[in-house]
């Protein structure tokens, strides 16, 4: 994967060098040439032009495998939520972690899939927004301007509908398979999980903010918020990530096993 990035970078530099050269003013004398910017695959696009245009590649910033509230605290667990979380943390400390959906190479579920240290790409098309995740070829489909159906089928990613509230993309998700977790450490959810994401561009379009409100009366006493930010990365293309190949941690009896 890294090698792919490197080789693509070489090509992109070769391909776009004339553009950069042409854009430069007459060279100032006696000054070392500035370092070339990283290859930009999409030099024709700016993230700042349209706040409702999320298209392009974004990369999580300050990735943390644990979900905490913006205050840094654990979520408002019910006794059951606390017990299930402690069970998982303890098992990991003992070297026998419980396996989550990702360990089985299943789709990661919402909101877990929005928190991975790999790039994601938003693609707009009429009536929907699609998110292509590098990690384990996860794909999310967000149906725009449609009401949440009364009964949604249970799927790993859940069923997502979105609408614009000003320049904020609001995405509601229900029907997330309870075999997925909320974070990587041990916050889990039931079939009553209801996720609302408020996604918007901040910092002059260089950052995408996702304020995730998580509601699940089985595991939490009230809704709580997790905030994630992503950087605009026109220098990255989504690479291949095949979980099914050489899964070193394929679970045995529900526990992650290192091989």
């Amino acid at each position: 994967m890294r090698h792919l990035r490197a080789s693509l970078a070489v090509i992109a530099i070769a391909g776009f060098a004339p553009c950069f050269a042409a854009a430069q003013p007459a060279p100032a004398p006696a000054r070392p040439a500035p370092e070339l910017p990283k290859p930009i695959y999409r030099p024709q696009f700016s993230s700042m032009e349209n706040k409702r245009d999320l298209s392009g590649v974004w990369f999580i910033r300050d990735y943390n495998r644990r979900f905490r509230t913006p205050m840094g605290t654990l979520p408002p667990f019910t006794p059951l939520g606390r017990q299930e979380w402690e069970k998982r943390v303890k098992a990991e400390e003992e070297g026998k972690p419980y396996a989550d959906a990702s360990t089985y190479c299943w789709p990661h579920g919402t909101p877990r899939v929005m928190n991975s240290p790999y790039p994601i790409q938003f693609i707009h098309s009429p009536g929907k927004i699609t998110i292509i995740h590098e990690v384990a070829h996860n794909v999310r489909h967000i149906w725009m301007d449609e009401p949440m159906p009364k009964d949604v089928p249970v799927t790993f990613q859940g069923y997502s509908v979105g609408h614009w509230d000003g320049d904020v993309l609001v995405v509601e998700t229900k029907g997330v398979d309870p075999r997925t977790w909320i974070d990587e450490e041990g916050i889990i959810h039931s079939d009553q999980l209801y996720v609302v994401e408020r996604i918007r561009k901040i910092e002059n379009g260089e950052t995408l903010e996702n304020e995730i409100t998580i509601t699940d009366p089985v595991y939490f006493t009230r809704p709580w918020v997790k905030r994630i930010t992503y950087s605009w990365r026109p220098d990255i293309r989504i690479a291949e990530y095949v979980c099914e190949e050489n899964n070193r941690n394929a679970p045995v009896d529900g526990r992650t096993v290192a091989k």
Partner: protein
Amino acid sequence: MTRPHQTSQSAADMIRNTALAFVAAAAFAAPALPAFAQNAPDPGAPNIAGVWMLEGDHSTVKTLDGKLPPMNKEAAAKYKAAVAARKAGKPTDPLNQCLPHGVPRLLFSAYPVEVLQEKDQVSFVHEVNHTPRLVYLGAQLPPPEERDQNWFGFSAGRWDGDTLVVDTAGFNDITTIDRAGVPHSTDMVVNERIRLIDNGQRLEDVITVTDPKTFTKPWSTRITFVKKPGYRLQQYVCTDKNPEAAAP
């Protein structure tokens, strides 16, 4: 627009109210329309977006003249072994381990594919094992010595009139070209010429495979897809259907 006590409208009122309604609708709709204008497909490019379904069974690929691909001796022996293994109930197909289809085999999948079209990228999101294949328009294939060995290779595309031309290279040699087991080497280059036919109701993909280490000459095959308006991709998770497969 009309007050409750009004029981009838003059023609002028109706025209005015209708016009106001249009203005209101336009004002409401206007900000939503250019949401993806920046990366919207070029207006001149054919619109191949939507969900498509393969026609016919292509589990055993045939060339344009209905023959087996022109395999060299070594490839023919591999092919024979794969066919024999399947007949013996011990198929060697990597798909049985939920491994990726590769190209061109992904195109022969009997599950639908959603095409997302942007100015500089055409994405083929396949239902089978939630597999996205991203084609970069205007990109160039890396030179042979710099190609990685990936499951799906790197896909560079361009519009040639009404045809989307895609070149894909940089493969591993684990995948097979079809279910029957036609092999290929890491040197394979796949060229596709994709265009709308039958007034846009069907999509044609003429695939040419060049791989001198496997075939005595380049060969082509042709597949067609029929439009599935309104269809939404369903969940297909190979490792869930097949829990043993994720284990090495």
